[in-house]
């Protein structure tokens, strides 16, 4: 459940940014979570309600954008879709996969009032 700590930092970052702008409350947050980031989006959703209570984020809507996993395979020189537990290239079977996308874990934007 490291999602709890990650959600706490999400709330911390968002609240600081909102406060800096003199916001009274946050309406929505858009977060990017890559499929390879090792973070379960549903668990973040679950923690968010508890973590946002008593902050400017209370009652706000958390929108999660899922970023699919992509890697470059040095074996067959192709860009391939991968999942968190993929260890071999789905095309040629080589293990020389270099992750190119899917490890994102970022707060993108806030809608504030």
């Amino acid at each position, binding site marked *: 459940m490291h999602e709890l*700590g990650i959600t706490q*930092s999400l709330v911390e970052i968002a609240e600081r940014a909102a406060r800096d702008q003199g916001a009274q409350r946050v309406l929505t947050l858009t977060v990017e979570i890559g499929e390879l980031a090792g973070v379960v989006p549903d668990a973040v959703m679950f923690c968010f309600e508890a973590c946002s209570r008593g902050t400017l984020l209370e009652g706000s809507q958390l929108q999660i954008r899922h970023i699919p996993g992509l890697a470059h395979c040095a074996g067959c020189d192709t860009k391939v879709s991968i999942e968190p537990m993929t*260890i071999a290239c789905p095309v040629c079977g080589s*293990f020389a996969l270099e992750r190119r996308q899917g490890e994102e874990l970022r*707060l*993108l934007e806030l809608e504030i009032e």
Partner: protein
Amino acid sequence: MCTDCGCAPAQHEHRHDSGSVRTLRIEEDLLAKNDRLAAANRAHFAAHGLLTLNLVSSPGSGKTTLLERTLTDLQKRIGFAVLEGDQQTSNDAEMTAATGVPAHQINTGAGCHLDAHMVGHGVEHFDLDKIDILLIENVGNLVCPAAFDLGEDAKVAVLSVTEGEDKPVKYPQMFRAASLMIINKIDLLPYLDFDMAKCRTYARQVNPDLEILELSCRSGEGLDAWYAWLENALAKKRPA
């Protein structure tokens, strides 16, 4: 007290001068704070010429015994300090301290991993100028600690032969993040169906650069190679 990490109570000012809805672009990494503190730890450790290792594994792989044995055998030549992470109890720190090496226990409570903030404060208990190698024994968990940089030079993943050879492919994130894998308790191999060759193959599939050592803290087999690995890693931190 803590000016680096801002853990002093936040000042809650409220401004009520805005009514309209606006969109703010943030683009901040959610692990940015941990990464920032980890970078500060790394710089702090480097300033003292410390080699720092983050030991990760499942519960019961033998990390604490490996530490005890290592400290007992090497402490005359190398200055150590140990940070122990567990949800609860100070048993591990007490065991480690019994070897005479400074040890401090961090209890994570509900937390499933150590983070850079805990480690930054944990080392305040040590005189870093008297230390060559800082060993951090993470919470026994092969999932969560993979995401949290502590400022270490390397992660060392400990896997015991009683766990099954497929751990590296079951928990690829951790074995990908590690620099060294220690296969522990090899004195038990005659009693188990553990397939060593398969384990090494799985580990290299996940992480082609992973170094692998086999050892037993009970029989002592393979410990010399581990000690040589430590001395070599320390020498790299302190070029002559």
